[in-house]
């Protein structure tokens, strides 16, 4: 009969170490005296344990008061020096342990620096608690974080009572002339109240005044701090002078508060007022980013409710543009990420936490193995009078040293990793760019480094320090803690296998998603295609004929470059740009009141674009010279659109139209071309409707040139061709279509690199763990194996015995890991495309790879066991 466990634990924990054993001994003696009466004995024991609380605390307090404060420091110093010496002695162990931990701490630091950007972001809105972001959602079109149109913004501003101010901004770009070469400058148009509502102050000069955003106001602009420095050397005298943007002189009134420099805002060069013009603003042009400042006393929930009501009213008032588009208000931090990005971030955090656990399990395992080796050393120290607590403290100090050294390395690793992420993502992803190792991140790293030793060092320290004195002294190798150690190490290895399996499944699913997206049928010939982006300024080209003339001429000049085999115009580079999302009206078909119009993406292309892109014509014809501005309007469908909305195959000759008013012209379908891939990984092919450029001239287009020359060699001739038409026209990015497609998906490549690297790390750790435990097991059983061999056991039988033992560890890990991975895959459902989140191939392949690697790691010690000379193994005993 044993004393009640909880009470015993309580008493053991409470008493100062100097009286712990004798106190427990007394309690045990008293318990045994009462024993035949179990209930009385237990009651007495419990009462004693409870009554020990106050005296024990009193004794601890007294000990603390009387203790020499320098004693603790002295013994810590002693432990540190001893720890360093003992780590230096086993260099191999130290290096592997430190590297393992450094990698894990490094990736955790790196991912935390990403989380840091989001969760603790230094947002441009001051007093962010009373700021809200207004965004649109359209579940049918899968838009989760859409912008708001100017008319909707004005309506919400008029009706909503929850806000002290509603502000809006939209990105814009201008051609800056008057300096040496025409350059494009980027920036934002903002409402005049924005700076005040966001709590920003101009760095110099003034912000925009109340009337500056009224239509017809004198043009003014503000400079970003960076642009002010680079363009004007930070000269304050520049205030009051003018900047020619798109041919219009803008008076420079001030320099923007650099605190606005969050994410994409940091790239802005120029800030201009957003003209609040009710007429002409299209209700379906949702391009405003709207931020509200709550009135004092109004809660986020109240604002959300009011905006939802206004949104319903707007949907009812303007069904043709607003049906299905809900405006919502949410706290700024919630609006930073869409749900997909949140899942990815959560996965990253979970993954690195797993990586940390795996690394800790591995180091714990190595420490347990070392504890067996060090048993004699510890036993000697205990025999010389070292208390158990002192030994534990010593061992934990060693772990702490490992962890701190690893953390220092880990910070370097995190720094490198962050740089690598920016490089792989080609600087496209703002979060990667913004991630820095700041004080908060450093504190996190130090925190991890301080907590980690408790994870990987405590169990080994407890086990090692408990070794039985006499047996430890008698035999350094197969001491008392052996069996318990083996079990603990087995559990750790199984846990590692389970975690590694999870990470590999996650990485496998994501990698397959990216692979699927990469291997989508392009539908056009990407090789040898170079894209150049052009955007004609409105002041010189306006809409219509001048745009036609410019692009016609530019195309002719580009096609005349000797190394160019063909040139065409398109508003979309396949697999990169989306095209305009619009609802299509089909002549002769009526929709139910709640049915949305068939959603398609429109692309404007020049005559001959299908030939240059090498998109096959399936039926009818492509665009020809006869489809000019005055000719009957025509359209060409992608096969996907034809299939989907004319399943009978009768699309040719039918008429469709876009736009909301009854006067929109009908377009006759004259041809059907092959499908090309969509811009997003989740769509195999894009639902494109092609329109002829001559009938729908635009300011922005991509010139696509087919050539065998590399893009770098084409850049100068291309620019020269454009400048020969208009010397003031800036030319934007010139890059191969392949590069453009890479950059489009660069963030996912960076993420996938992370996940795969984590999974490989986990796999290596699990293999190392199995190898370590099985080698140790074999070394422990050398004599037995030698005996078996000497008695004639076949090597095969011994192999099988050892492999079976390793297999048990593996099997346990696999079962737990698969269960965990299935749970995780539910989270991944919305970010995995093209395959199911429980993709059988992944769920079969990953465990197979894991088993193969594990068996290989297990086989080495098995093989070694039967190679050793049985006689020498027996003699050692």
């Amino acid at each position, binding site marked *: 009969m044993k004393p009640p466990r909880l009470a015993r634990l309580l008493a053991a924990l409470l008493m100062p170490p100097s009286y712990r054993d*004798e106190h427990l001994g007394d309690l045990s003696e008293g318990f045994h005296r009462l024993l035949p009466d179990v209930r009385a004995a237990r009651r007495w024991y419990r009462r004693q344990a409870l009554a020990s609380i106050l005296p024990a605390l009193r004794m601890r307090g007294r000990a603390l008061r009387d203790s020499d404060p320098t004693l603790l420091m002295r013994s810590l110093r002693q432990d540190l020096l001893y720890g360093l010496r003992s780590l230096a002695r086993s260099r191999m162990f130290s290096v592997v342990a430190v590297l393992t931990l450094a990698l894990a701490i490094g990736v955790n630091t790196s991912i935390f620096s990403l989380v840091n950007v989001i969760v603790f972001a230094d947002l441009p809105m001051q007093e962010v608690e009373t700021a809200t972001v207004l965004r649109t959602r359209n579940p049918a079109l899968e838009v989760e974080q859409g912008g708001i149109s100017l008319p909707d913004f004005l309506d919400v501003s008029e009706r909503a009572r929850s806000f002290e101010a509603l502000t809006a901004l939209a990105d814009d770009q201008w051609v800056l002339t008057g300096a040496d070469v025409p350059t494009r400058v980027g920036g934002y148009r903002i409402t005049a109240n924005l700076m005040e509502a966001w709590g920003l102050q101009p760095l110099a000069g003034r912000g925009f005044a109340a009337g500056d955003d009224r239509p017809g106001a004198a043009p003014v602009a503000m400079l970003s701090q960076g642009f002010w420095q680079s363009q004007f050397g930070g000269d304050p005298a520049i205030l009051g002078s003018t900047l020619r943007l798109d041919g219009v002189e803008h008076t420079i009134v001030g320099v923007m508060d650099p605190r606005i420099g969050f994410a994409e805002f940091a790239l802005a060069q120029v800030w201009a007022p957003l003209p609040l013009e009710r007429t002409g603003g299209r209700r379906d042009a949702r391009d405003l980013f709207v931020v509200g400042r709550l009135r004092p006393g109004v809660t986020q929930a109240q604002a959300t409710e009011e905006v939802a009501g206004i949104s319903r009213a707007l949907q009812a008032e303007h069904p043709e543009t607003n049906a299905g588009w809900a405006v919502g208000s949410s706290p700024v931090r919630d609006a930073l990420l869409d749900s997909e990005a949140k899942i990815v971030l959560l996965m990253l955090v979970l993954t690195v936490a797993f990586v940390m656990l795996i690394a800790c399990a591995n180091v714990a395992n190595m420490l347990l193995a070392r504890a067996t080796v060090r048993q004699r050393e510890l036993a000697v120290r205990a025999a010389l009078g070292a208390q158990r607590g002192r030994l534990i403290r010593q061992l934990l100090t060693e772990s702490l040293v490992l962890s701190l050294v690893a953390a220092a390395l880990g910070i370097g690793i995190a720094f490198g990793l962050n740089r690598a992420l920016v490089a792989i993502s080609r600087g496209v992803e703002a979060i990667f760019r913004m991630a820095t190792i700041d004080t908060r991140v450093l504190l996190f790293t130090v925190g991890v480094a301080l907590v980690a030793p408790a994870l990987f060092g405590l169990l080994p320290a407890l086990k090692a320090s408990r070794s039985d004195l006499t047996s430890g002294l008698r035999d350094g190798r197969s001491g008392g803690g052996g069996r318990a150690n083996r079990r603990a190490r087995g559990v750790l290895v199984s846990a590692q296998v389970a975690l590694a399996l999870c990470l590999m499944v996650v990485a496998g699913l994501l990698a397959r998603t990216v692979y699927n997206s990469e291997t989508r049928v392009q539908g056009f010939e990407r090789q040898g295609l170079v894209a150049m982006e052009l955007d004609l300024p409105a002041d010189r080209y306006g809409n219509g004929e001048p745009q036609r003339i410019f692009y016609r001429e530019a195309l002719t000049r580009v096609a005349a470059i000797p190394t160019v085999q063909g040139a065409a115009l398109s508003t979309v580079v396949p697999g990169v740009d989306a095209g305009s999302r619009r609802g299509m009206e089909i002549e002769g078909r009526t929709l139910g009141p709640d049915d949305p119009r068939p959603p398609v993406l429109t692309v404007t292309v020049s005559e001959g674009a299908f030939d240059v892109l090498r998109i096959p014509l399936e039926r009818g014809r492509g665009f020809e010279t006869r489809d000019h501005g005055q000719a009957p309007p025509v359209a060409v469908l992608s096969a996907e659109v034809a299939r989907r909305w004319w399943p009978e195959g009768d699309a040719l000759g039918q008429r469709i139209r876009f736009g909301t008013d009854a006067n929109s012209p009908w377009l006759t379908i004259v041809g059907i071309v092959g499908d090309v891939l969509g811009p997003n990984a989740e769509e195999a092919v894009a639902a494109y409707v092609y329109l002829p450029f001559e009938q729908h001239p635009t300011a922005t287009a991509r010139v696509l040139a087919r050539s065998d020359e590399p893009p770098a060699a084409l850049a100068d001739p291309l620019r020269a061709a454009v400048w020969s038409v208009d010397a003031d026209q800036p030319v934007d990015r010139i890059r191969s279509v392949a590069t453009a497609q890479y950059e489009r998906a660069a963030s996912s490549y960076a993420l996938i690199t992370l996940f795969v690297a984590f999974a490989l790390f986990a796999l290596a750790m699990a293999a190392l763990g199995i190898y370590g435990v099985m080698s140790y097991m074999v070394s422990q059983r050398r004599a037995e194996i030698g005996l078996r061999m000497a008695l004639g056991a076949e090597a095969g039988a011994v192999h099988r015995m050892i492999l079976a033992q390793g297999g048990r560890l593996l099997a346990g890990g696999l079962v737990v890991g698969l269960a965990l991975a299935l749970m995780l895959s539910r989270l991944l459902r919305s970010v995995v495309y093209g395959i199911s989140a429980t993709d059988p191939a992944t769920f079969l392949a990953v465990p197979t790879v894991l088993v193969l690697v594990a068996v290989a790691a297990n086989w080495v010690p098995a093989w070694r066991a039967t190679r050793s000379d049985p006689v020498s193994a027996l003699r050692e005993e």
Partner: protein
Amino acid sequence: MPRGDFLGEFEQVVLLAVARLGDGAYGMSILDEIRGRTGFEPAVASVYAALDRLERQGLVSSALGRPTPERGGRAKRFFGLTPDGTRALVRSRGALDALWDGLDLEPGTSA
């Protein structure tokens, strides 16, 4: 005699029990002695707390004995009075006796 040199009541009880037990004074035996003589059973931990303080004051000394099976393999800590401890006990008794001299109190009466 300066203030603070008097022993607390519980300290006196514990010291007297240790004195009565001679060589055999350890946690449980002290507890038994106190309970046997006074009918009051303190917590073992309280006894240790008192002994801990007394040992710091140099009034008792202690040494570990041998582990025994009924104690779960744990050793006993034996306590003994130091000459200072004996002096302190005697002095406390003297002080109390002097104060009691001539008083005749019965519970329920007031002085």
